[in-house]
């Protein structure tokens, strides 16, 4: 257990973060008043966000160990522990989750009109589960939270969603669940092979046979690739995104998708390094396929939410590309891009939601030419769109640049193949922006539309702030992740060295 660092001042901070929203949800069970439910949920999420600042300010940037660790025996007969800890790979995702949640509550303020308390309960339970997934260091704890979050998300889409919500929610649930049942078998196999431990760091860098690694990798890949979602497992995403309420779309885009890529980094690379190396080319080309496919389909969409959903497929393709080129630039870029995608795409979904609240339509046609009447809105939208296709000076530029740099380091052909994706992103985002801001000669009458109110500005402003902060000064963010990424790659390379040495020994 030497991989864990217990912080002397904050020994229980992670548990507090996880259970605070859950406790808030329990209180809401007994609340009848809707306005109280809104303020209460906002208060709880803001409090969680503020508490999570402790993590950043006390994070030791020089170590690759799991920090703020907590460890308690949970189910003794199976040696399942309640272990939490965060390292450079997860800290930014935790922060992203805690900071996006208050914005989701604010975005649902007027959007959700019926059954407010259950909705807020779902939001809070989601927060608990999502934070837990990023912090869990016991595979069963991870799996439980990973699966448990399906229920609130399912209900959010299924009850408060759009007209085709039933189809979308069922598809989302079935896809994700079917993908992860084999993960459970893989986990149990690992438990048995490792002498009865579900502790994740114990499972890493072990000498499993290549066949076993390939099987495990397949199980991981199925579960995580569906969550990312990678082409061709992406078909649940547009449906779920389009039908979900704004807050649901934001959570899906900003946090849920990241769990897939986080899973690759946390599990696939350290547990099955040889299989990763073996299957890397296929995953890389699937990523390229996703980038190009997402770009072209986004270009053809008339529904704004669908457009952004398909753009997510492309952006997440960049992230998986960065992860599987297996060098520092690529992985750091990938982690940063996960955060960027969370911020930018989250913001874009919020923007679409704000238009939807006014026009009750997600059609691009019905939103054309609102620039004249909503100047503040289109200013925000413009910056987020620019950020989405990686305009220099915005956050995504840094991420995509690092990923492409990593890709070039790996193979020029591969990097060149990804470039059209970046161009396509500019094409579809600018098309949308142009239509919304100016439109054409046949714009519908938009003069009755009101511009953003204070609440909506408060939602978007922090996201814009981060767009520029990461875009202009990404170093503090990279510092947080650097040590862990370098350590991950070092171990990956030395493992490979060992494996090669071992094969040579056998040969001679």
């Amino acid at each position, binding site marked *: 257990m030497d991989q864990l660092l217990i912080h002397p001042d904050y020994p229980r901070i992670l548990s507090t973060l996880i259970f605070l929203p859950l406790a808030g949800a329990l209180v809401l069970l007994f609340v009848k008043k809707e306005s109280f439910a809104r303020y209460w949920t906002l208060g709880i999420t803001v409090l969680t966000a503020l508490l999570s600042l402790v993590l950043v300010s006390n994070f030791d940037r020089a170590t690759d160990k799991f920090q703020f660790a907590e460890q308690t025996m949970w189910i003794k*007969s199976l040696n399942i522990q309640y272990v939490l800890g965060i390292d450079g790979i997860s800290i930014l995702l935790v922060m992203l989750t805690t900071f996006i949640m208050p914005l989701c509550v604010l975005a649902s303020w007027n959007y959700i009109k019926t059954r407010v308390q259950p909705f807020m309960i779902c939001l809070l339970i989601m927060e608990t589960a999502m934070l837990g997934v990023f912090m869990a260091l016991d595979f069963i704890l991870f799996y439980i939270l990973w699966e448990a979050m399906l229920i609130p998300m399912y*209900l959010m889409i299924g009850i408060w969603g759009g007209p085709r919500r039933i189809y979308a929610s*069922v598809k989302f*649930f079935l896809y994700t669940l079917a993908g992860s049942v084999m993960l459970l078998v893989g986990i149990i196999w690992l438990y048995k092979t490792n002498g009865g431990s579900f502790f994740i760091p114990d499972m890493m860098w072990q000498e499993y046979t290549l066949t076993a690694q390939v099987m495990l990798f397949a199980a991981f890949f199925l579960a995580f690739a569906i969550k990312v979602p990678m082409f061709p497992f992406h078909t649940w995403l547009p449906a779920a995104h389009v039908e979900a309420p704004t807050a649901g779309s934001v959570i899906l885009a900003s946090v849920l998708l990241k769990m897939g890529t986080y899973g690759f980094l946390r599990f696939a690379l350290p547990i099955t390094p040889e299989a990763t190396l073996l299957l890397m080319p296929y995953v890389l080309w699937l990523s390229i396929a996703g980038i190009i496919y997402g770009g072209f389909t986004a270009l053809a969409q008339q529904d704004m939410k669908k457009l952004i959903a398909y753009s997510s497929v492309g952006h997440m393709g960049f992230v998986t590309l960065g992860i599987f080129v297996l060098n520092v630039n690529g992985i750091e870029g990938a982690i940063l891009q996960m955060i960027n995608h969370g911020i930018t795409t989250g913001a874009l979904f919020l923007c679409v939601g704000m238009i939807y609240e006014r026009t009750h339509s997600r059609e691009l046609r019905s939103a054309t030419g609102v620039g004249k009447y909503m100047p503040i809105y289109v200013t925000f939208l413009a910056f987020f769109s620019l950020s989405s296709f990686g305009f220099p000076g915005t956050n995504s530029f840094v991420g995509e640049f690092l990923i492409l740099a990593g890709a070039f380091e790996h193979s020029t052909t591969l990097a060149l193949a990804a470039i059209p994706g970046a161009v396509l992103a500019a094409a579809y985002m600018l098309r949308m922006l142009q239509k919304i801001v100016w439109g054409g000669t046949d714009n519908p009458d938009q003069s009755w539309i009101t511009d953003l109110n204070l609440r909506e500005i408060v939602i978007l402003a922090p996201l814009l702030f981060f767009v520029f902060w990461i875009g202009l000064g990404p170093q503090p963010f990279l510092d947080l992740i650097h040590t862990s990424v370098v350590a991950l790659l070092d171990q990956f390379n030395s493992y490979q060295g060992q494996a090669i040495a071992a094969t040579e020994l056998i040969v001679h």
Partner: protein
Amino acid sequence: MQFLPELTLLGASLIFFLVSLTDSSATRVKNIAILLGALVFGATLLSYCQESILFYGAYQVDLFSQIFKTLIAGAMCVVLLFGRDLKGISNKVRPEYYLFMFISVLGLMMLVSSIELMSIFVALELSSFAVYIMVPMRDDSGRFRMQMEAGIKYLLFGVTATGFMLFGMSYIYGLTGSTQLPVVIEKISLLYTQPAAVVAVLMVLAGFFYKLAIFPFHFWVPDVYEGASNETTAFIASVPKLAATAMLIRIVTMINGEGQVIVNVLMVCAVLSMFYGNLSALVQKDIKRMLGFSGIAHAGFVLLGILTMQLTGYANAIYYIIGYVVMNLACFLVICTVSKDGENVLIEDLSGLHQRSPLLALTLGIGLFALAGIPPFVGFMGKFMLLTGALQEGYLLLVILAAINTAIAIFYYLSVVRIAYCSDPEGRDTVIATPLTSVVSVALLLIITIMGVIPQRFLDFATSAVSAML
């Protein structure tokens, strides 16, 4: 004291016999039933730590049997509580209905204590015959008379299974010269190289396969579930399964390392039960039928634990069946409450339940999610333990097939949740759950969650039960 629960049940049955002679109001019968049910539960608790051997070695009272008796009594009390209105049973026969229910429970309690083949047989028949009569007691005002068909089917399949069991018992007696299980275990362990011993044990198992509804003795399930009144189905779907699991474990512990053939057969039965149950459940419209098929699949999972032949495997199976009974009762609570006059509930009748009764919708939702094996509920923990146990014994293929089944099963559970949560009531009335029903449903929800989140204590409990028997 050792025989207190059984005596209480016998006394309760006699009281109902007397009640049936008088002209009692429905409320009074109901109250008597709940009171007596509570008494029985109290009696099982009182005799919880008893240990002894009664009736010339035919009847063993130990922790294993007492735990199961407590569980059986508890499950019966829950059924009595939420099914207290007995909407599907005519007013005239209610005392008789309760009489047979208590007799059936008496049979089940005797069953878990029996360690002699003849007493096993008698106890099993006592419990079965009472239920055979409960099924056609449904009052459907002459609509389709499907309760008659269900009753006949239940009886015929039951008698067939019993025939198998008796035949197997005669083999065992022929091979070992004894009907006492301890003696049988000792002698038959040397005989597993002979096909006769394998056939004998498998045939005895058939009787319990029938009770637990394991392939190929599951054929009665859908029609009986559909034909019996909701309360009867709730009873059949939960209480006897506890006893059947206990007896399966008792019989399977007879098998030693040389009985690999039997384990192989159990494996095939487990996999076929899962696939048959889950695939058939996909297309059901009547929720009781759906739960019936899902019960077949769950029985396959229970078998997955038993066939590992390990202490932990048996304990996991017990943990799982307890969890299953609780989850199932939660679903049946909703069915019994939603059904207005005791008619069957179609899945679409649950439309918009979350608006018609939020608590019942939550109960149904959590019950079904738990049955589907979604964490953090007991269904997940149980499945996970069973899979872990089976994989530790090296049954990788079995575990993969079981995992695939989990994925299939989610579809039909989810489709019910979808109806309850994501559709509009379309003019269906609100459902009013009485405070007592609400309390029961909250209690069931708490058990489902607590057993799932902190399973250790329950596992220890199950382990101590099994080790008491071994």
